[in-house]
């Protein structure tokens, strides 16, 4: 009974979490549409950049989400490595967050490149910020490749945690590269970190702020989805493994009883005739099927099938 209660509590919590995710997703969609509308139609063009300034409402928020994603990934990696909070959930969170981080790193590079072409006259330049961001992209691609390696979940989690720590070394370098080296890319100027003053026109400021909110909501939505998927994948793997073990066990018992039946029917001296004839007799004449249906096994495969359906 208590097991059942626990199960219903878990499924209730999961339903609530899914509902919350959907709400965040809807809010993200609304705010993204609002950002696009404000950015393209309401805000004025810039004095120097003209219409190009409209990329301002997208590019910095995307880069911001990139940092948030890697930050979440790093924190959950630390939580996983810390023995007292070691839990595979943190490993899955780190993986999910890095996936979203890689996506947004790619988007940062693309949107920056689109902005760079008309303003700097080139799609790409070997500027410290751009170079370190590109490195970040491939480093976390490597981390995701590392996560794909087969293996025991705990071993895999530990392995990826070490990989994640090494990859994170580059994140502060990216952040400070604008300040450390004299870079083509400008330092953050909208909100001066030293004085806290803003240098931006009213409606532009609000649109930019909305952009940050919209992309952060999008990040939360994607993170929740990927996190859930990672969990389902783990459950699916565990169930398939269990299923395979059950099958082997049943095969073993079927074989064993077939053997016993045969021995009781023909006596042990038939064994001397040869394995082939023995197996033939055992297979054809004994009543026991090789793969008997078994309720627990069926349950397992149905659950595994369901989860497989959800993953796809």
């Amino acid at each position, binding site marked *: 009974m208590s097991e059942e209660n626990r199960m219903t509590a878990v499924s209730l919590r999961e339903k609530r979490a899914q509902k919350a995710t959907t709400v965040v997703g809807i809010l993200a969609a609304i705010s993204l549409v609002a950002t696009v509308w404000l950015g393209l139609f309401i805000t004025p063009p810039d004095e120097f950049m003209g219409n190009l300034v409209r990329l301002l409402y997208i590019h910095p928020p995307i880069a911001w989400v990139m940092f948030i994603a890697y930050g979440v990934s790093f924190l959950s990696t630390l939580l996983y490595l810390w023995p007292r909070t070691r839990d595979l959930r943190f490993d899955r969170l780190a993986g999910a967050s890095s996936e979203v981080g890689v996506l947004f790193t790619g988007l940062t590079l693309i949107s920056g490149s689109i902005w760079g072409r008309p303003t700097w006259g080139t799609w790409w330049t070997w500027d410290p910020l751009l170079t370190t961001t590109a490195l970040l992209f491939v480093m976390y691609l490597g981390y995701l490749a590392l996560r794909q390696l087969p293996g025991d979940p705990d071993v895999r989690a530990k392995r990826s945690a070490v*990989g994640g720590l090494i990859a994170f070394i580059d994140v502060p370098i990216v952040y400070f590269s604008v300040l450390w080296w004299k870079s083509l890319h400008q330092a953050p100027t909208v909100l001066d970190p030293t004085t806290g003053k803003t240098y931006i026109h009213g409606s532009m400021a609000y649109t930019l702020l909305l952009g940050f909110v919209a992309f952060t909501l999008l990040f939360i939505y994607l993170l929740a989805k990927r996190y859930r998927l990672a969990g389902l994948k783990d459950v699916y793997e565990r169930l398939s493994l269990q299923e395979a073990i059950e099958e082997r066990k049943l095969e073993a018992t079927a074989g064993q009883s077939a053997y016993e039946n045969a021995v009781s029917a023909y006596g042990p001296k038939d064994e001397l005739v040869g394995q082939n004839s023995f197996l033939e007799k055992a297979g054809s004449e004994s009543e026991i099927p090789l793969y008997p249906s078994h309720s627990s096994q069926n349950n397992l495969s149905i659950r595994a099938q369901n989860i497989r359906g959800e993953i796809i």
Partner: protein
Amino acid sequence: MWRDAFLIMQKDLNIELKSKVVFNQVIPFGLVVILLFGLAIGKFDSSSLSTVGGNLSDAGLLKDASAGLFWMAVTLSAVIGVQRSFAIETQDQARDALRLSALDPAGIFLGKAGALLVELAVLESVLALCAIFLFGMQIAVFWLFLAASCLATIALSAVGVIYGALASGARTRETLLPLLFFPVIAPVLLSATKACEAAIVGQPSSGMIWIEVLAVFSLCYIALGVAAFGSLLEE
């Protein structure tokens, strides 16, 4: 820890002395890379020969890029050195023996990194000589070049051993290791190249910042390896 490190280092170097795989395969590979860079970038301009005593301009590009090409060749060879270092451990379940040996994991890490360091140092001296002869690399401030090389080699071997251990459990280790190794080593490659360029041009002051960066990276990687190697070996 230090005794264990020394034992492991001795073991790896003994194997290398007996098998000579690094000497016979990895170092020649580095030479091939150096030659290929020369073929790809250096161009032979016959018109420059006709002017007697005129400078051979084709060496100019190679000479300017020599520090970067040298470190690129070192990095490419290092990844093979790392693979070799862990090929030793995958043969005959040596990895399990290592795990059961009750040696300190940090010691194992330091020992393997130390052996790799020695091998890479030999490799670098050979490749540096080649770069001097083939690319016309001239080192004005030798101590700066030496310091940059030492620190970069420490970082290379530390990261190499961490990722070598990470990848060695995987079936796809040959393809996975370069993907993991090169991006992580890129900051080291950059700083080493910049420091060596400063050593070539003869401006020690501009190279010092890169020496500091290299030192920070080496320390980070060593600390990470010492802390995490135990859990990497457990699998």
